[in-house]
């Protein structure tokens, strides 16, 4: 019997689960990679979803993706599915994508609710954009439709970004809201529009995808394109930071940063993190050669040769350059499947083909996300081997990966 079979058996009873995971957590060496079970066990994956991730918020998209009343997005998350719709009063609402009759999925993919109605394909129960049950075919006239509206989910819109939570008791969002306003707000995200979106599924556990996302140790070997224009941790970086800040200050721009990420999250609040990084000397934005791609956004009148990052919770990472933004959203689909959605934003009035070229705009992060898929999948294959033993993280460059795994283990331990 191999280790995974053993742990799966041990975890199948609640009483043993605590002890087994407890002993795995005890085995964990500080600043070392996770034990293989964390990447391979179905039981741990269920705990990850239900206990570790559920209280957090997911960024669904930007409001410009659903510009008209009745436009909706279907957002799938593990076994769950959410309908995010713009209602007749332009309010963004979210509902569980589960029919109140016999539970069918109602909407398969994003679309438009023709005539302002969401219709279940199974027996045609019809719901209004406010989630109320408007019509239940052939049910008795005195059937009380009021008790059978779609289940509403907590929803926030900040700087045009739509967030939903699948939890009944989500984390407070105030710190994130402040953080988003103080960073992405400066870059004018509220008035941005979606230029393009893509989705790639990594055949890997969600934690491997995130461990990779938060370190740039791999950038030089895996992302040569990225490394041409993004600053690396080198001696010249201090000088570049000073220049970036001076160029922003000269325009009256100050982007505040904060670090309430991972275990540094404020009590009861969603994780909020922001930082600023310089591009390499003279690079304006993340393009092939650093030259501009689209009209400047927000308060920027000229390039400061820098960028901002803003993390919202563990799974949503936003980047903003002077002329475009990118949302990176990781979504667990199953134990070995994690979706990375990338959504590119440009200034709201920018016209494709005139003010920006879509292929050029998206080139950097299409190439980089594609490379990340490959390295993360290779990582999963490796940790699935019986020869895998956790190795040491490279510090300080993998410091955020350490923080991520420490947050993860502490959340799991608290959930037991």
């Amino acid at each position, binding site marked *: 019997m191999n280790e995974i079979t053993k742990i799966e058996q041990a975890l199948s009873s609640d009483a043993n689960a605590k002890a087994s995971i407890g002993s795995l957590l005890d085995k964990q060496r500080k600043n070392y990679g996770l034990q293989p079970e964390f990447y391979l066990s179905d039981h741990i994956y269920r705990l990850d979803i239900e206990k570790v991730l559920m209280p957090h918020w997911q960024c669904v998209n930007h409001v410009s993706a659903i510009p008209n009343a009745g436009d909706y997005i279907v957002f799938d998350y593990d076994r769950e599915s959410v309908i995010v719709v713009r209602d007749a009063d332009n309010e963004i609402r979210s509902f569980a994508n589960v029919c109140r009759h016999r539970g069918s999925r109602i909407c398969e993919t994003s679309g438009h*609710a*023709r*005539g*302002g*109605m969401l*219709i279940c394909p199974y027996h*045609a129960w*019809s719901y209004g954009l406010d989630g109320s049950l*408007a*019509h239940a*075919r*052939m049910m008795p*006239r005195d059937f009380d439709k009021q008790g059978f509206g779609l289940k509403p989910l907590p929803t926030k819109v900040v700087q045009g970004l739509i967030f939903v939570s699948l939890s009944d008791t989500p984390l407070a969002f105030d710190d994130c809201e402040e953080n988003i306003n103080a960073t992405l707000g400066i870059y004018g995200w509220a008035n941005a529009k979606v230029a393009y979106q893509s989705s790639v599924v990594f055949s890997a556990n969600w934690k491997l995808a995130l461990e990779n996302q938060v370190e740039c140790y791999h950038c030089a070997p895996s992302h040569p394109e990225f490394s041409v224009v993004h600053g690396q941790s080198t001696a010249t970086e201090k000088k570049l930071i000073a220049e970036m800040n001076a160029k922003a200050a000269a325009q009256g721009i100050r982007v505040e940063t904060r670090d309430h990420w991972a275990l540094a999250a404020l009590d009861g609040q969603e994780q909020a993190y922001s930082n600023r990084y310089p591009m390499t000397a003279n690079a304006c934005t993340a393009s092939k050669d650093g030259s501009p791609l689209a009209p400047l956004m927000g308060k920027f009148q000229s390039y400061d040769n820098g960028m901002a990052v803003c993390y919202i919770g563990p799974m949503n990472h936003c980047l903003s350059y002077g002329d475009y933004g990118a949302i990176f959203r990781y979504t667990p689909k199953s134990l070995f499947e994690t979706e990375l959605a990338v959504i590119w934003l440009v200034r709201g009035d920018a016209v494709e083909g005139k003010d920006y070229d879509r292929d050029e705009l998206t080139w950097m992060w299409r190439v980089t996300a594609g490379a990340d898929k490959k390295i993360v999948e290779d990582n999963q294959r490796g940790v699935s081997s019986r020869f895998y033993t956790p190795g040491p993280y490279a510090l300080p460059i993998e410091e955020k990966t350490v923080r991520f795994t420490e947050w993860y283990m502490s959340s799991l331990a608290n959930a037991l």
Partner: protein
Amino acid sequence: MEQTDTVWIDVCSVDDIDEGGMHEFQHEERRIVIYRLEDGLFATDNVCTHEFALLSEGWLENGTIECPLHGALFNVKTGQVERGPAECALKTYAVRTEGERVLCSI
């Protein structure tokens, strides 16, 4: 309001339609339904403008007909949509009586 080339079809007898009731008929390719309200007789297309459903199988109340399939509401006098998912109004037809007979203009 009728055109000179209006054709009046003899549909049924007044007694065939209960107060608050409906009567459907077909004329060539066209399916039409006549509604009997307190203040008179009205007619619209019988097929919902949303998908395929017969309004004569729906629910008539307060001058509106509710489609049996997805519950669109139409004003039977004007044909206007009062609630989706239908987006297009129903075509309406003039109705009058001649003695005991109900006539509908096509």
